[in-house]
């Protein structure tokens, strides 16, 4: 396993280096200092925040749906799936795939947003 040697805690990660590293530092500087750069940065932040909120809201709605389903449909608790009560299966196991799927969708879309930002901001 390769590793970087650090001699003291740094408050802030530095992006120094040669070749690609220096080009990246310049690109970031341009993003920070020019108005055009900031337009792209703001758009990126907005789209990532919107994505996060949409995924979170979707997940919470599904969870609310589960809770309402169990609370409002009376016969469900007596239902059996492979000998196990339906409410246990739904809350004890059924929610986890929903969490995993939401997370996977988010990671994919967030990476896509960043790729689009890179194209727009001219970082290569």
């Amino acid at each position, binding site marked *: *396993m*390769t*590793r*970087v*040697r*650090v*001699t*003291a*805690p*740094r*408050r*802030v*990660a530095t*992006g120094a*280096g*040669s*070749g*690609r*590293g220096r080009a*990246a530092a310049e*690109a*970031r500087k341009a993003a*920070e200092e020019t108005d055009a*750069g*900031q337009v792209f*940065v703001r758009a*990126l*932040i907005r789209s990532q925040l919107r*994505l*996060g909120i949409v*995924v*979170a809201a979707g*997940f919470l709605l599904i*969870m609310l749906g589960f*809770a309402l389903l169990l*609370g409002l449909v009376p016969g469900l*608790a007596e239902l*059996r799936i492979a*000998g*196990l*009560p339906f409410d*246990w299966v739904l*809350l*004890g*196991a059924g*929610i*986890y*795939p929903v*969490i*995993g799927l*939401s*997370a*996977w969708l*988010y*990671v994919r879309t*967030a*990476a896509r947003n*960043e790729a689009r*930002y890179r194209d727009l901001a001219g*970082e290569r």
Partner: protein
Amino acid sequence: MNPVVGVAAFAAVTLATAVIGFYGLRISRTTGDFYVASRTVRPWWNASAIGGEYLSAASFLGVAGLILLSGTDALWYPVGYTAGYLMLLLFVAAPLRRSGAYTIPDFTEARLESRAVRRVTSLVVVMVGWLYIVPQLHGAALAIRITTGLPAWVGQVAVIAVVCVTVMAGGMRSITFVQAFQYWLKLTALAVPLLFLLLVLAGTGTPAVAEAPVNPTGLPPAGPYQNISLLVALLFGTLGLPHVLVRFYTNPDGQSARRTTLIVLGLLSVFYLFPTAYGLIGRVFAPGAAGAGQADALVLLLPGRMIGGLAGDLLSALVVAGAFAAFLSTTSGLVVSLAGVISQDILGGSVRGFRLAALFSAVVPLGIAATTDSTALAGSVGLVFAFTASTICPVLLLGIWWRGLTDAGAIAGMLTGALACGGSMLAGAVLGAAGTPSWLAQPAAWTVPAAFAVMVLVSRATRDRVPRSITRLMTRLHTPERPLVTER
């Protein structure tokens, strides 16, 4: 239970921890190693380590115990513990890693350019850490008492001693390996005995699984307010846990921080199926375990009760080993992150200072745990989540996503959350479980919005204090790094 089983299991876990810790010692030499393993930990290792650190006494013992006591209402606990990571992934993981800060106080200081904010954050982080270590030690006391019959304090002192030696000797580098190992140990320790339990149940002809009709505690079932408030605490508390956040700095970049979190979600989802199964089996076949005030020991007792003989002893030993892995891993993770915060703020960030701070951060909660009584483990950890959700969570979320946050707003919000939530916890402790109204027993539903509101309003009122470097900071937090990882 045969007392030798408990002692042997604890000794085995300690030995394994020490061996891995020693192996790590040889490669951790610099201050950077001690803090964050030099950011070269791979996603799978890192995710296993996060899982190992996160799955505490509350998850290993508490969830099953609470399910035994209150049935389906308790199922929200594991769901919330897992979904908290989803929130962390959505709003915190990548930007926090890109901030380049080592600890939460580092982040708030860099974001708000204020030493005062740093001090308040450090104070809150240390309180959260201590509050969170105490239930681990209560769990250790319970496990030692149940499995060996030794006095309860032996378990607490043993856990703190092992954690101090490991952390002071190896720092974060060895901790990463130890934690990753402990996730898989915990999973095995629940999965293998469960397999045997199911075989036994299938062999004896399983009676139809039915909900136990009795409510062993006599407490009324949780209403919708309590469930919602609990979920608020768990969803938003996870993203403020100091020992969880410090792990994200060990990812090489923001993208890998997200990938790591995705793996963690998978690992947690798999893990929580097992305590849920124990709880269900316990509710149907051993509802008596709850009556004696030791519901949290259900996981430890079930294999011995239902299988018995040598096989039962061996399986019990495995479960006990898993339980101690849970106490050790969470406690050491917390001690590492607390020691990082304390040593940087007070002792100047040297390796020697880190060791001193580790000792200090471990001994104080030992004192608290020795003088307080254990309640339901999952419940008391749930309250710690409410506390982080009302203090650290608002400052992180607003700091990452809102340019308008100011130092005055951050301090006012954190103090509001800490006082409101801390006050509720104290009032709940004074009034006792039966006398506490539900809005004090589960305060998150109002303390979290209150902390957010105060933070936003005070920031609006002190608009001129927005740091000048805000544009540069927001750019760093949210734009992807170049693949610097390839540059060694």
